[in-house]
C-alpha cells in the first residue's frame, strides 16, 4: 500500500514530526525526521475524529500519529477491525432524520406517558410518613407568604369540619387528613390539597358557596387529590420533566432553574387535567353515595368563573372548564 503523510508527536514537545506512514499487513509503519518504527495494529488505540478530521493513533508509550488521508484511514480501520458506529450514524442524513423523528416522538411519549407512570409508581413507594414531614413546613411556609388567619366563625368551621370528617371516614387510609381554614387576598376563593393530607379552604370559597352541599363537593374533590397523592406525583412529574430536559440539552444547571420551588408548586398546583378528573370522579362518587345532586360542583365552578372574570385564578385555571365537566357526566 502507498505511504501517506502523517504527523508524529513524540510526547516530549508540541512539535509535530513529518513522517510517512504505511501499512505492512496488520502492522503500521512510519519513517522520516529521525523516526523509523512499526507496530502491530492490535497494540495501538485508534481515535477517529468526530466529523471530518484526522485519525489519531495513540501508541503504548503515549506518543501519537495523526493521519489525514481519508482512504488510508478507511483501510487502516478496516484492517484493524475498528467499527466506528457513532461516526457512521453521525455522518448520514437518513440516520439524522431518523434521529429527529425518534427525538420528537420519544420526548413526547416520555413526557406524556413515561414521566406520569414513573411518578405514580414512585409515589406508591414513598411511605405516607414522608408526606407528613413535607407538610410540617409546607403549611408554615404558606402561612408566612400567602395566608392570613381565617375569620370564619367557630360554628361554621365546626360544621365544615363535620362534613370533612364524614368524607375521610369513608376510608381508614384517610384518617390522618386534616382541614385548615385560611384567608388569602392573593388567591381569593380557593381550595388546596398540599402534601401530608392537609386540605385548605379559604374564607372567600366558603362565602361564595350557596349551600353546604357545594362545599362538601369541593372538600370531597380535595380529599380526592389527597387520596391519589396528586401533590407528590406532581412534584415527581416536574422533577422528571426537568431531568429529561437536562439530559437532552446536556445542561444539569437547568434542573435548578426549571424545577419549581415549594411555594409555587403548592399554590399554583397546576395539576394536569387527568389529576382533576380523578379528583372529580372521587367527589362525584362521594356525592352520589350521600345522595347529593352532583350538579353542585359545576354550579360552584360557574360562580367561581363569574367571580374571577374567567382568569387569574390558579385553582380555577387548572381545572377543566365547567361546561367540559358537565359533559363528562
Amino acid at each position: 500500500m502507498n505511504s501517506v503523510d502523517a504527523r508524529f508527536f513524540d510526547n516530549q514537545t508540541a512539535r509535530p514530526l513529518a513522517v510517512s506512514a504505511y501499512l505492512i499487513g496488520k502492522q503500521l509503519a512510519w519513517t522520516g525526521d529521525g523516526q523509523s518504527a512499526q507496530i502491530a495494529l492490535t497494540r495501538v488505540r485508534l481515535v477517529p475524529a468526530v466529523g471530518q478530521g484526522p485519525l489519531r493513533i495513540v501508541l503504548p508509550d503515549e506518543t501519537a500519529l495523526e493521519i489525514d488521508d481519508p482512504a488510508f484511514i478507511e483501510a487502516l480501520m478496516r484492517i484493524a477491525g475498528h467499527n466506528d458506529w457513532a461516526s457512521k450514524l453521525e455522518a448520514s442524513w437518513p440516520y439524522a432524520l431518523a434521529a429527529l423523528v425518534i427525538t420528537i416522538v420519544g420526548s413526547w411519549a416520555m413526557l406524556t406517558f413515561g414521566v406520569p407512570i414513573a411518578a405514580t409508581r414512585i409515589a406508591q413507594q414513598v411511605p405516607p410518613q414522608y408526606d407528613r414531614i413535607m407538610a410540617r413546613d409546607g403549611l408554615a411556609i404558606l402561612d408566612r407568604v400567602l395566608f392570613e388567619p381565617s375569620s370564619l366563625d367557630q360554628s361554621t368551621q365546626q360544621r365544615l369540619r363535620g362534613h370533612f370528617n364524614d368524607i375521610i371516614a369513608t376510608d381508614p387510609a384517610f384518617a390522618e387528613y386534616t382541614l385548615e381554614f385560611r384567608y388569602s387576598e392573593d388567591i381569593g376563593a380557593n381550595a388546596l390539597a398540599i402534601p401530608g393530607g392537609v386540605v385548605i379552604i379559604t374564607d372567600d370559597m366558603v362565602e361564595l358557596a350557596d349551600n353546604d352541599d357545594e362545599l362538601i363537593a369541593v372538600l370531597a374533590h380535595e380529599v380526592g387529590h389527597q387520596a391519589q397523592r396528586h401533590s407528590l406525583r406532581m412534584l415527581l412529574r416536574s422533577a422528571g420533566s426537568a431531568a429529561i430536559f437536562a439530559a437532552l440539552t446536556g445542561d444539569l444547571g437547568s434542573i435548578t432553574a426549571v424545577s419549581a420551588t415549594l411555594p409555587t408548586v403548592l399554590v399554583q398546583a397546576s395539576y394536569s387535567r387527568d389529576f382533576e378528573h380523578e379528583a372529580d370522579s372521587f367527589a362525584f362518587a362521594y356525592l352520589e353515595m350521600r345522595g347529593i345532586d352532583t350538579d353542585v360542583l359545576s354550579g360552584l365552578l360557574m360562580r367561581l368563573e363569574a367571580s374571577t372574570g374567567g382568569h387569574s385564578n390558579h385553582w380555577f385555571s387548572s381545572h377543566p372548564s365547567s361546561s367540559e365537566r358537565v359533559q363528562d357526566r
Partner: protein
Amino acid sequence: MEDAGNIRTLTSAGANFTSLRFTGNTNEYFKIWIVNIALTLVTLGIYSAWATVRKNRYFYGNTSLNDARFDYHAEPRAILVGRVIATFFLALYVFSEYIHFYAPLVVILIIFALTPWLVVRSKSFKLRNTSLNNVRFGFNPDYNGAFKAYYGGALITVVTLGFGAPIALRWRNQFLVNNSRFGKSAFALDVPLEEFYSIAFRAFGLSILAYIAMFLSVFAIGAMVDTAIADQQLAATVITYITLAMLLLFYGAILVYTQVRYRNLIADHTTLDGHRLRSDWSAAAMAGLYLTNLFAIALTFGLATPWAQIRLAKYRAENTLVAADFAWEDFAVAEGEAGSAVGEALGDAFDVGVDIGF
C-alpha cells in the same frame, strides 16, 4: 462543503498575532447533534456523557492554531459518574426544601464549603483533557490559592458592600490563569486593578443610563398603549410585559458587555511563557450573535441550536489571537495530575464560577 475557516492576523505593539481557526460547519454538526440527542433519549440519559465528549471533540478538533489542532480526551465514564453524583446533589437540593425550609441552605453551604476543591478539580479535569498538538494543558492543584481567591474574594465583596467586587474578580482570575499550564509552560496574568474598576464603573454607568432610558420609554410606550387599548386591565398587562422584555434586553446587554470586556481584558494581559494572547471580541457583535441565536432557536423549536453553536464558536475562535513568535518545540510535555469529573459536573450544576479566564 467543508468550511475552511478564516484566520485573522494583526500586528500590535511589535508582536505578530494570528487568530485561532474554526472549521466546523452546521451541515456536519447538525447530524452529530441530533444523533447524540436521540441516543441520549433512548438510553434514558446515560449516553449524555458520550454525547458531551463527542460534542467537545467536534468543537475542539475543529479549532486550530497554525495547523495545530486542539483535542478533547475526557473519558465518558468519568463524566457519567460525575453527573450521577451531581444529579444526586441537585435532587438533594430540590427535594430538601420539602423536608425543611432551611434544608436547601444547608446544601448550598456544603457546596460553598466544597468550592475551592470543586474549582481546582473541575479546572484540572477540563485542562488535563484538553490538548494542542498532543500536549496536554494542565492546572496546578493550588488549594490554598483557591481558598484565598474564593473565600477571600467573597469576604472582601461583602465587607465593602460590593465595592470590592472588582478586587475579588481580579484575584479569582489571577488564581485561575496563573495555575494554568500548557505542558510545562505556565500561563501568567498580570493586570492592573484599575482596569477591572474601569470596566465595573462603565457597566455601572451604562446600567444607570439603561434604567433612565427604560423609565422614559416605558412612560412613552405606556401612554401610547393606554390610548390604543381601551381595556384598562389589558393595557396594564401589555405594559407589564413590555417593561419586562425591556428589562431583560437591557440587563442582557449589560451582562454581555461586562463579560466580553472582562474576557478581553484578561486575555490581553495573559502570557504563555512570555508569548502574548489577545482577545478582540466585540460586545456589540456578541450581543447580536446571542440575540439572533435566541430568536432562531425559539422560532425553530430548538432545531437551530447547532447553527447557533457553530457561529458562536467561529466568532470566538477567529477573534482570539496568539502572538505567533514561538516554535512548537518550545512547549514541553508535563506529567499531569488527574482532575475529577465529579468536580466539573458539580461545578456546572451549581454554577460555581470557574469559567472566566481564557
